Structure formats: structure tokens, C-alpha cells
């Protein structure tokens, strides 16, 4: 085993999306040296750059608003399970972050009066969501933060460095081990603090809106380092993901802004409106929340009233072309290139795995229960409870990223760099062992890794997806455990050194399978339906389950527990509720 490359820094940040980049800027501002790494390319690999829509924030530029109103809406959407301290911090800090991004010239859309434009989005009682035209929020945010990161004196950045595990010494996070994608060589990193900002887990589902890097690494690494997770049974399904015809060059959840800017009609296979039949009033206003809409589409499908490709129709045929063009400009041409003319016919949409409400359990300083280990962005659980409001995720990436960087920089004053190669040895040895069981060069065509990924995705989609039952969940849990115990250890990667995707697949699967097990197990234990967790066999919400579920690792096995919901102190409560 050749000696690994060794790096040292004050704060290691794993993942360079919105949260990771903001954390790097804040850490450097706090006087720390930051090392920002990404398994893909800095700013490009995750969900942030894909987000084409909006960011929720109580700026009050269109109509009077206050962060406590934003909080009230967030708590309502969260169906009783939000960690209210985290939600309060999210909503309270948001205007500062949006203003800071504005100073950094992100280019929030503005009206003729010079005020930021803020639009309505489902679940918000007010016009609260800022954006960058046209459907350019994510790319603009990514570019702005990338520039800030590049200008930071104390920030180093490395692309193509996949972090495999956090290194823990005497219960404290002291660094990490990674793999350089270009040549597969190991890299050790000593750090006084580590921030996990690797995004979500939606790749675990066959139908998802995410990038390929969203396989739950942050959750799995946190577990293995001794931190605990919360609310893992709550991946969110975005109701109207694009389904057909095949559309390239567009984010599959792009229909949302169309719907709330223009009011599209959602129709079943018989061209009838149906949301009303599920107790929701949606008539053209598009106010029903994500969990409710997803549920309704799924139920229509089950009843044999789906669209041909297996979803629902979304129609804008009633909207004049000029109005479409005014609202979406060049996007209309892009659709035309895909053979889609919204004035002539509907598109087909269906629910799609989109975001994860659950994640690493942290306090309001973004610290996990492991000293020196922090988390930020979608990797964090709690702020959004059982169902996330549209627009809250980018806000979460900014606010939690900034806080993680700032507080980590404060906390490390007490800490020195400690590094013993032996602490990293088990992680390095596992990588060496995986390489040493590479299959012979003459067996180079093999898709065992790809097939295992596909099987996991189908299993999660069918049995741990939108509509759950004890039977489906138990079956999935059994097979996931089997895959962890038998299929994964049996995988033999190719012997290639450069950009070995099968070694990456192995590590991605190792995280993905562990995280999948926590989702299935948590879903079995939650014996009710709430928010994004819908049980066909237990269709009602049960007040007895107004509590959060935690997961920790004992040996190799996830162990579940319950905890009381963290309620906000009075001074953080929404104005209405405090009266």
C-alpha cells in the first residue's frame, strides 16, 4: 500500500454545493483555513446548481411579511415534527443570507420599482419566494458562491476528491480519508473540524430528480462517525416531476414555476381534474402541498385513471402563447426543441423523489453529537419536519451552511490538530482490500455493480416509496440487509486505476444501502401516515406519533429510538402563536 497523500486544514468541508460553499466562506470569514472538497466538480455536482425555481424568505418586498410568518408556514407544512429551534433559525437568518447573496450580485429578479420579485408557492400564505430569471436560480447561486469561494484567501478547494469516511479519535472528528478519482489513490486529511455538506439521498429511488452524487454519503458517514440521524422515514416526493415525452436539458421538476406563475391544470387520464376528490381545493390556484398532490396522483394511477406513461396530465392549453412567453422567455424555445408546444397539448407528470427532510441531527450551531463534526444543508434533518415547503431547501443550504462555517470556526479555537495515521488505518485498509479483490483484466465486461444499484432503486421506489405497507417495507428491509451482508461484500471492481467508477459504485452503494436500511426501518416503526410518510395500511395521522425518530449505529446495525419534538422557546414562536 503506497503512502497516502496527506493534507492539513482547520476545517474540512465535504461537498461543495450551496451549503458547503457558504460554509467555506463563513469559516474563512471567521479566521479559519477551510478545505472544500467535492467528489464531482466544485459547485457543480449536487442539487444546488440544478434548482431552477425559488428561494423562500420573508423579505416583505412584494407585501408585508415577517420571518415569524415564514416560520408559521414552515411549521404547518412540517405536520408537527419540525425541530422548531432549527426552523426558527432557518426563517430568521434567511433575509440576511438573501441580502448577502444580493450584494454578491446573484441577480434576484426585480420589478420595475426596483424591489425583489417574490412569488407565491404552495404552502406559503404570502408572496415569499425570490428567484433568478429565467428558471436560473440554481446556476446563478452556484456561480455566485463559486466566485466568493475563489476569492477567499483562506479557502482551498479540490474537485474529484471523494470522502470515504470521517476519522474519529477518542470520540472526536479529527479529519477524513478520501480517494482521488483521477488515479484512485488515497488521501488523508487532518482537520480541527469537519462539516458534512454532501447533500441528500434521492438517487436511492428509481425515479428521482437528483444528480448521481446524491446517494446519502453524509448520512452514512455521520452514522459511522458516531453521530445520529433524525426523521429518516421522510424523503420527499415532488408531485409533478416531468414524465413524458422525454425532455432533455431541463430539470425534471421545472413545471412547478409554470404552475404557480401561470396556473396549470392537473388532469387524470380521462382529462378530469381530480385533486378536489382528495379533500383539497386546488382550482387553478395551486395551493395544495406536495405530500397531498403526490398522494392524489398516485391514487388516480392505482384506480386505473393514469395518463399513458403512468402519471397525470399537466395542461397549459388555456394560457395564451404571449403570456407563456412573457413568463418564461427562452425556456419556451427549449421546450420547442424538445417537440413540446404547451399551447397545443399537455405534458405528462408524476411524483419523483426530490429531497430529504430527515438527516444528521444537529443543534442550532449545526454541531452533531460528535465533537468536531458538523453538518449543513440537505444533509441536516429536522428543520422541515414531515414535509418541506417549496423554496425552503436553498434557504436551508445558505443559512445552515453559513452557521456551520461560522460556529465551527469559533469552536476550533479550543482544538489543536491531532493526527495519528493509525486512526485512519481501518479506512485505508478497506480501500486497499477492495482494490486487491479486483476481478481479472480479462473479465472486464461486468455489470454486477450497476445491477445492484438498479435493484436497490427499484426496491426503494416500489416498496419504500410513496405508499407504504408493513408487508412491502418488511420485504424491502429484508432484501436491503441481505444486500448489505452478501451482495456488497461480493462485488469485485475492475482493476482500472484511473477514474474507477466501480470502486465509486461500491462506496456509493455502501452509503446507499445503510441509508436505505434506516429509511425502511424507520418507516416500519412509524405506525401512522404523516406528511411524506404515507401508510396504506395505517392511513390516519396519530397524535401518539407526534415525535421524532432517531437512528444511531451499533456495530454495523442501525438502532432506532424516539425523542420529543424540540419546541421553540417563546421568543422564537410565531407572532400569532405567542399571543
Amino acid at each position: 500500500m503506497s503512502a497516502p497523500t496527506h493534507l492539513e486544514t482547520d476545517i474540512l468541508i465535504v461537498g461543495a454545493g450551496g451549503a458547503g460553499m457558504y460554509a467555506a466562506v463563513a469559516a474563512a470569514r471567521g479566521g479559519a483555513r477551510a478545505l472544500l472538497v467535492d467528489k464531482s466538480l466544485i459547485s457543480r455536482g449536487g442539487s444546488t446548481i440544478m434548482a431552477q425555481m425559488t428561494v423562500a424568505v420573508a423579505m416583505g418586498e412584494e407585501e408585508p411579511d415577517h420571518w415569524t410568518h415564514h416560520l408559521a408556514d414552515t411549521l404547518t407544512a412540517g405536520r408537527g415534527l419540525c425541530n422548531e429551534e432549527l426552523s426558527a433559525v432557518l426563517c430568521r437568518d434567511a433575509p440576511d443570507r438573501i441580502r448577502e447573496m444580493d450584494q454578491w450580485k446573484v441577480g434576484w429578479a426585480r420589478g420595475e420599482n426596483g424591489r425583489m420579485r417574490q412569488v407565491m408557492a404552495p404552502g406559503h400564505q404570502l408572496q415569499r419566494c425570490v428567484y433568478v430569471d429565467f428558471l436560473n436560480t440554481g446556476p446563478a447561486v452556484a456561480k455566485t458562491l463559486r466566485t466568493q469561494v475563489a476569492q477567499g484567501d483562506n479557502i482551498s478547494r479540490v474537485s474529484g476528491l471523494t470522502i470515504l469516511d470521517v476519522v474519529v479519535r477518542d470520540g472526536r472528528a479529527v479529519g477524513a480519508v478520501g480517494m482521488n478519482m483521477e488515479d484512485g489513490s488515497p488521501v488523508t486529511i487532518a482537520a480541527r473540524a469537519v462539516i458534512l455538506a454532501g447533500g441528500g439521498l434521492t438517487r436511492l429511488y428509481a425515479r428521482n430528480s437528483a444528480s448521481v452524487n446524491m446517494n446519502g454519503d453524509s448520512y452514512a458517514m455521520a452514522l459511522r462517525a458516531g453521530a445520529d440521524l433524525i426523521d429518516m422515514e421522510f424523503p420527499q416526493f415532488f408531485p409533478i416531476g416531468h414524465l413524458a415525452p422525454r425532455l432533455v436539458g431541463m430539470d425534471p421538476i421545472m413545471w412547478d414555476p409554470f404552475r404557480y406563475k401561470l396556473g396549470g391544470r392537473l388532469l387524470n387520464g380521462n382529462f378530469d381534474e381530480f385533486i378536489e376528490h382528495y379533500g383539497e381545493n386546488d382550482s387553478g390556484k395551486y395551493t395544495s402541498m406536495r405530500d397531498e398532490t403526490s398522494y392524489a396522483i398516485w391514487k388516480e394511477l392505482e384506480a386505473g385513471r393514469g395518463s399513458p406513461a403512468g402519471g397525470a396530465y399537466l395542461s397549459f392549453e388555456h394560457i395564451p402563447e404571449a403570456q407563456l412567453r412573457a413568463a418564461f422567455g427562452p425556456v419556451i424555445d427549449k421546450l420547442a426543441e424538445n417537440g413540446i408546444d404547451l399551447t397545443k397539448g399537455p405534458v405528462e407528470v408524476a411524483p419523483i423523489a426530490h429531497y430529504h427532510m430527515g438527516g444528521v441531527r444537529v443543534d442550532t450551531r449545526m454541531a452533531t453529537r460528535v465533537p468536531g463534526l458538523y453538518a449543513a444543508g440537505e444533509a441536516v434533518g429536522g428543520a422541515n419536519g414531515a414535509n418541506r415547503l417549496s423554496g425552503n431547501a436553498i434557504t436551508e443550504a445558505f443559512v445552515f451552511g453559513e452557521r456551520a462555517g461560522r460556529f465551527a470556526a469559533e469552536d476550533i479555537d479550543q482544538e489543536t490538530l491531532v493526527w495519528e495515521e493509525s486512526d485512519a488505518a481501518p479506512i485505508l485498509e478497506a480501500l486497499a482490500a477492495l482494490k486487491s479483490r479486483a476481478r481479472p483484466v480479462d473479465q472486464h465486461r461486468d455489470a454486477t455493480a450497476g445491477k445492484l444499484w438498479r435493484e436497490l432503486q427499484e426496491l426503494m421506489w416500489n416498496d419504500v416509496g410513496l405508499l407504504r405497507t408493513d408487508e412491502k417495507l418488511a420485504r424491502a428491509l429484508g432484501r436491503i440487509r441481505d444486500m448489505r451482508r452478501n451482495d456488497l461484500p461480493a462485488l469485485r471492481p475492475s482493476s482500472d486505476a484511473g477514474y474507477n467508477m466501480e470502486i465509486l459504485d461500491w462506496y456509493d452503494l455502501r452509503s446507499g444501502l445503510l441509508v436505505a436500511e434506516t429509511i425502511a426501518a424507520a418507516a416500519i416503526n412509524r405506525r401512522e401516515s404523516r406528511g411524506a410518510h404515507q401508510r396504506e395500511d395505517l392511513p390516519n395521522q396519530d397524535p401518539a406519533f407526534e415525535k421524532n425518530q432517531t437512528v444511531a449505529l451499533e456495530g454495523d446495525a442501525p438502532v432506532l429510538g424516539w425523542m420529543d419534538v424540540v419546541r421553540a422557546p417563546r421568543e422564537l414562536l410565531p407572532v400569532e402563536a405567542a399571543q
Partner: protein
Amino acid sequence: MTPEFVTVKVQRGAEGENLRMEEFDVPYRDGMSVLDALMWIRTHVDSSLAIRYSCINANACKECMMRIEGRTQYACTARLETGGATIEPLHNKRLIRDLVTDIVPPKETLGNLLG
């Protein structure tokens, strides 16, 4: 008539190795992208095929640039032609392996950090 399968030819091999073209028959779906075909190969035939991509649909990450029928394109927006396609890595970037070239900005490399 849309064909059931389409043949794609993909350049394989790493920097300094014997480079070769390999053929794969990929099930054809209307409107599919070249990236769809490459992902299908990784899932069903050969997971060792090296490609660089993140966002799959949004054309946001800009990582999937390669040469398709001799033209530099994004694999995720190029449609797979029913007549098949020849797919090679970028010519003007250093080859790492298969379709992956070194497109990492110089200031973001490990080498740069180590000085």
C-alpha cells in the same frame, strides 16, 4: 420505424494504454439522450465504463462533454440517433480513461494544492 436496438461505438482505455473502440447494442427509446445510452451500458452490460456526469437531465453541471459523431457535445442533451453513434472523449483535454478527460479547473486540483 423506430429500431429496437441501436449500436453505439465507445472509445475505451486509459492514458498510455491501447485505445480501442467497443460496440454495445442499446435498447432504443424515443427521444433518449446519448447519456441515457451510456448509463444503460453501465447498468446492464459493463459498469467499468468511465463517464463523467452529475445532473443527468438539467444540463447544469456541464461535466458530460464528449465527442459524439466527431462533434463536441453534451451527452445529456445530444439525442441518440437511430442509426447509432460513435462516442469518443474530448480531443483537446488530457485523457484519463474511456470517456473521461481532465476538465478540472487548474486551481481545483490536488496537484495545485500540493504545489
